[in-house]
């Protein structure tokens, strides 16, 4: 009898977890659909949008720039060491450029922005939720999704490709600096190899990825902020959830986008 109860409780807990997971996915999908619907319907808040563009785009530049600079340099060292095994040291410029533009630039920038901006969005909106500021917006005839979510989603989706483009240039420059000053490559040959092997599709695919990652960061930040409850602890939990979920979704969607853009 006790064994049957144990089995029942085991399956019941699996059922509860599955239902909770499906409910969370459902809530997220409804939230995304609602937010996307509000993007095209007035009123619009251009001042809020510009403020978010500055916060998400401009103020993320140092962290994205430093990340890609060091990664480009490390990549050059790694490819040089690996290439030496096959007498293929000359591929350093092209592999650094392709690796940075197609993959590392967008993914690393996405993860850094998820940590910096996703956390900040979730904490800000979460605090507004628990201090009734979101209810106050409603009573002032202002739709919270239009005022808080839409400007952040638009700003993140549009700012990320620009951030990644600049990050790519800095990352390639990091590889160039290490290649020329540490690995003794000829400067003109390094630049020529980089430019010759890089195709437009490499750049555009990275920028498409960046836009998708920006959208993910903003949506997960806003969604988790709106879901936060129970004071400071709830806001902390929302912030953690925003960063973790955005990071996982960035890595998963990166694989799917790579399949979509490069499988031939």
């Amino acid at each position: 009898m006790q064994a049957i109860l144990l089995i029942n409780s085991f399956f019941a807990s699996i059922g509860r977890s599955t239902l909770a997971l499906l409910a969370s996915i459902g809530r997220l999908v409804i939230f995304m659909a609602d937010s996307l619907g509000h993007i095209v319907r007035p009123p619009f808040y251009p001042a809020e949008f510009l403020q978010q563009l500055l916060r998400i785009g401009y103020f993320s530049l140092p962290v994205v720039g430093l990340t890609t600079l060091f990664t480009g340099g490390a990549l050059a060292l790694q490819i040089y060491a690996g290439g030496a095994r096959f007498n293929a040291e000359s591929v350093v410029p092209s592999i650094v450029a392709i690796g940075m533009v197609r993959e590392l630039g967008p993914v690393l920038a996405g993860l850094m922005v998820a940590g910096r901006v996703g956390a900040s969005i979730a904490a800000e909106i979460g605090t507004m939720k628990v201090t009734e500021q979101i209810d106050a917006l409603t009573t002032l005839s202002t739709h919270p999704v239009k005022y808080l979510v839409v400007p952040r989603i638009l700003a993140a989706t549009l700012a990320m490709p620009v951030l990644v483009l600049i990050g790519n240039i800095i990352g390639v420059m990091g590889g160039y600096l290490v290649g020329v000053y540490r690995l003794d490559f000829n400067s003109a040959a390094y630049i020529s190899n980089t430019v010759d092997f890089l195709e437009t599709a490499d750049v555009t695919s990275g920028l498409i990825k960046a836009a998708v990652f920006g959208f993910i960061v903003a949506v997960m930040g806003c969604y988790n902020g709106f879901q936060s409850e129970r004071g400071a602890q709830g806001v902390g939990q929302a912030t953690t959830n925003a960063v973790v979920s955005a990071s996982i979704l960035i890595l998963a969607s990166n694989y799917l986008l790579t399949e979509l853009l490069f499988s031939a």
Partner: protein
Amino acid sequence: MIELRGITKAFGNNAVLRGVDLSVTKGESLVVIGGSGTGKSVLLKCILGIVQPDAGEILLHGKPLDRDVFLQDFGMLFQGGALFDSLPVWHNVAFRQRQGKNRLTKPQAIELAVEKLRRVGLKPETAYLHPAELSGGMQKRVGLARAIASDPSVIFFDEPTTGLDPIMAGVINKLIREIVVEMGATSITITHDMSSVRAIADRVAMLHDGKLRWQGDVGEIDQSGDPYLDQFVHGRADGPIEGVR
């Protein structure tokens, strides 16, 4: 003016409102009292549409309440002020007037904010501070200035004196009463502070256990004969209302 019929609301197994019938007439100041967790805030949120009632109807001038229309002529003072941290005081006060097609310019909005701040006893220079730079009492006053900025015909006050010292609570109560009378606004206040009740109310309604327990004129609360209201009014630990809920 505002009429609630058979409002019920449950969160899971917790039935917070269990068929509340309540009405407030034009220009009247109704104060809803009751212990913590009796559903006072949920009742207000049902009227505002922030919480959807499970059953019942809410009427405005005898017709089902259109939330968007209702909120256009409405102001609310929140328990914690609910001021927007990222905006200066003037923008908080004139927030509604800075939205939409006929929005005020920045100088016009500042002028309006300064006028409303003066009405609640704050100096013009307060307009340029941020909410974090204000004391609790000042935040409440700024919240009050925001609530009256558009001269609404309906104002809600959610626990207006919570967290304030008795003198500041008295100041806020007096301001609320003056403003409501001066504007001729219809108001609903929820509180468990009896000094607020006596200062603000024309009529009092008591919620207990998710239902309307008693309602009547403010002058009748001391001789109501209702043991629940009597215990609440006099703050007695012993009586029909359990101390631990």
